[in-house]
């Protein structure tokens, strides 16, 4: 990206220099046979094209999302929020339960809410609670 920027800047510098030589009456760029009246417009055009490409390139890099952390994807976050709420309900419903009943209830909880499946039984995006069944995907 820095190289692209440097070449763009160089093109504009060359265009300005060519234009100056043309103004001062030189017909050719020194040590070459390039006519100054054609050189400076070509260098300007090259600078504009390279500048456009540089801006597009920077924008495309800027818009690229940061790499995701583990479980940072939206389905995982929504599932975590969903499970957090359902786990709180589960805790309240089973306060004081004896170990056998608790074990059975937890098995039912895992089956019903399937914590590993991030796409089914999860909170829909854009809502703040899973309390309303309408906010939960089936």
């Amino acid at each position, binding site marked *: 990206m820095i190289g692209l920027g440097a070449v763009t800047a160089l093109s504009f510098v060359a265009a300005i220099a060519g234009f100056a030589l043309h103004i001062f009456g030189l017909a050719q760029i020194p040590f070459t046979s390039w006519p100054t009246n054609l050189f400076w417009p070509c260098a300007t055009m090259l600078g504009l094209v390279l500048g456009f490409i540089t801006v597009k390139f920077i924008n495309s890099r800027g818009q690229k999302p940061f790499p995701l952390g583990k479980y940072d994807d939206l389905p995982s976050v929504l599932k975590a929020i969903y499970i957090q709420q359902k786990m*709180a309900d589960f805790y309240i419903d089973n306060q004081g339960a004896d170990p056998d009943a608790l074990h059975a209830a937890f098995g039912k909880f895992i089956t019903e809410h399937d914590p590993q499946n991030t796409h089914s039984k999860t909170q829909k995006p854009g809502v703040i609670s899973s309390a309303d069944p309408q906010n939960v995907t089936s």
Partner: protein
Amino acid sequence: MTRELNLNDIQGNITRAYGRYSFPFARYYFFHFPDAACGRKFIDKVCEKITTAARWPTMQDKPDCTTNCAFTFPGLLALQLSIRALKEMPFEFIEGMKARAFILGDRDQTQTEAEAFKANWNDHWDPIWKHNREFGSDGSNDVHMLVTLNAQIKPGTTDQPHPALEERADWLIKQAEACGVRVMNGVGPDGKGTYQSASAVFDKIGEAVLPTAKEHFGFTDGIGDPVFEGQFEPEDEARNVIGRGKLMGNGWEPLATGEFLLGHPDESQELPPAAKPPEFMHNSSFFAFRKLHENVASFDEVVDTEAEKFAKVMNVNIEEARETIRAKMCGRWSDGVPLMKYPTYDEWQAFRKASGFIPDIQPDDTPEEKQKKALDAYGRHIAYIRSPEARDFRYADDMQGYKCPLGSHMRRVNTRDYLDPLNNVGTDPKTGKPAENPNATSALNKRRRILRRGLPYGPSNLEHKDDDTEQGVIMMIMGANLFRQFEFVQQQWIQYGLDFHQGNNTCPMLGDHSHHKRHTIESDPASGKPPYVMSTLKTFVECRGGDYFFAPSMTGLRMLAMGTIDPT
């Protein structure tokens, strides 16, 4: 250095919670000024009777009945104060309490304004407050002035107000009529009352009916009110400041005067915002007058239901479960003993016994002996709740909430040293126990303190009470800045729980539980018991009306009466 205040210029209800100074009866009258001239005339008359904050060196200096007054923003507008002075009043005071209902949680926060208005959100308010500042009205039902009367007990009785209360009330009404000021009615659910009465909750102590320090849910109230510089004489301040001031590394210190009185430096060493001219606002304060109804039957029903489950989970008897649930909601046991000092039921019972709160009545005691023992126990309890022992505790040594739940009422309304950002939340590696944080300060708390004035209203404990009977607390919540102090505490700490790691859970006692019905009671893992989550909370306390008031100094009142408030 203790600040010396001009107590003769300050209204007495700012420095004194009259209920604690043996004034267990009150009446609140509301007035409307048809025009500025009659309003000024009336204020001039009321000024003659205003009780100031001047000390009462002897019992004879103590009045039988106190008188204080305050004004709403429409009241000041009706008195034709200069717009230049009015526009510099705090915005929340200008808006009034009804307009702030969404912020305060008095209105369902899940509804839009249009939905709330369509549902007549304040239909349950007393008519006087329902029609006060009604949108689109001509203002003829606006409350302009509040006059509060507090009275001592009639000599020779234990449960009757001093006749001075009736006399002062008659005088007040006559003056209003003579000046052409309207005494407003519409008080009470049926709107027939012309004043709001209030009194301590009376109960039978032995055979005598006496005022208690309790509210209608049965909790002892009004123990830890803030203390500010200049409020007490230096020798009294040293004792009163314990548990009521701030902790900044040098033990308990009084809060800055400017937290409660305008015109004095506050905790940020600034003068609180106030309108001009300075002498009009100096030594004045603001307060929120709130009629808070208590749903006694719902409260008892929820406590009973939760206590049954709690008893099973914790393997304790139902009485212990009931008392523990109540204490863990409040932060104090029902007699005011703080959980932070006596966190378990057994410790509390042992302390009560050792302190003599329970009369040691024997079967062969004569009626006189029984009565004497009952009164002695009552006296010892009153002495205890007025003592520093009932207030001298911190929360930074219980960052996990094992002793006093993080979401309990007391930890929300006065966080003490819990919110110091430097507190260590975890375990002390040296002791293996929860960190003690001995140097914790009142940071983030000292700018959010409120003075609580007012009294309960409703029947004594000898009468039937349920959700529909008329009982609750008249709260006057004072501070130099209602937005920074009262509204912040109400919105962030009572109706929300994030500062206490409680998510959306609201205060278990004062919060709106129409959507969030849970309260977690943390448990020390060393006890082997799991935390308990209450999950069936109902809204136990509902606002039934009120407004924001400005309580001027004596100088301010004189200027109001003379119409000489010139901000230039």
